[in-house]
């Protein structure tokens, strides 16, 4: 059985954690620590913001993909009451 990583070891992993670049057996330990430690959680959130900066390849989001998404959404409670269907008829 591996011993649990120390706070310092976890801190060293936070950058890789934010990039989903840690190995599977470390992920649970880091996630558990981050959910309990405000400082590490704050640090990991900051790295996520930094990572979002480089993911800037913006293409026009396709309308066809939105229509597929809209068709797969559970209907609003109101339309559920009025129309016992899958919500597909809400599409234009």
């Amino acid at each position, binding site marked *: 059985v591996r011993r649990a990583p120390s706070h310092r070891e976890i801190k060293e992993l936070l*950058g890789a954690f934010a*990039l*989903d670049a840690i190995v599977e057996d470390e992920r649970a330990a880091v996630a558990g620590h981050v959910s309990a430690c405000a400082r590490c959680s704050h640090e990991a959130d900051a790295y996520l913001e930094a990572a979002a900066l480089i*993911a800037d390849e913006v293409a026009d989001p396709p309308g066809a993909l939105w229509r597929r998404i809209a068709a797969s959404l559970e209907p*609003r409670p109101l339309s559920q009451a009025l129309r016992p269907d899958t919500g597909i008829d809400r599409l234009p």
Partner: protein
Amino acid sequence: MEWNSTRAISDPSDAALVAAVGRRNDEALEELYRRHAGSILGLARRLLGERTLAEEVVQEVFVRLWRSPEKFDPNRGSLRSFLLAQAHGRSVDLLRSERSRRLREEREGLAAPAPGYELEHEVWRLTTAGKVRDAMSSLSEDERGAIELAYFGGYTYREVAAILGAPEGTIKSRIRVGLGRMRSSLVEAGIEAA
């Protein structure tokens, strides 16, 4: 309060739109799609290398936001980084299962080694493909290489260490220091609160 016109819906903050999604307002979700789906699709496509799977990732991310909008906490960061992080995690999972399947098949002689799968080439592709963002210009070449391999290549820090022939501790630290530097340049530029 619900929005009635498409004009009014282009103004609210992401957080207000997520709150509206919580009230089952699908127009709010559509506006969030217009704002963020392009980046999410771009990231998933860059990681996965093909469009169909990348679109499935985008769909999963938005369906999840529809089902559980309360998972987004505006005090912790932007919606954009929240959605991108989900898309990234999902894409990396898909990529890793595909890589391990391919490795297994190669080992069992079911498939020839994938053509062009050379680490040096991979490093070159990843480090030259993206345009260098302002925030990345503050990084050393070493930091940038490690971050790009991890983020766009979907490699673990251990794999990045093997690819670059550097110790694992060095790679962990390059990623962390580099991300921290990018974050500081953001704060200095006044784009984000500290």
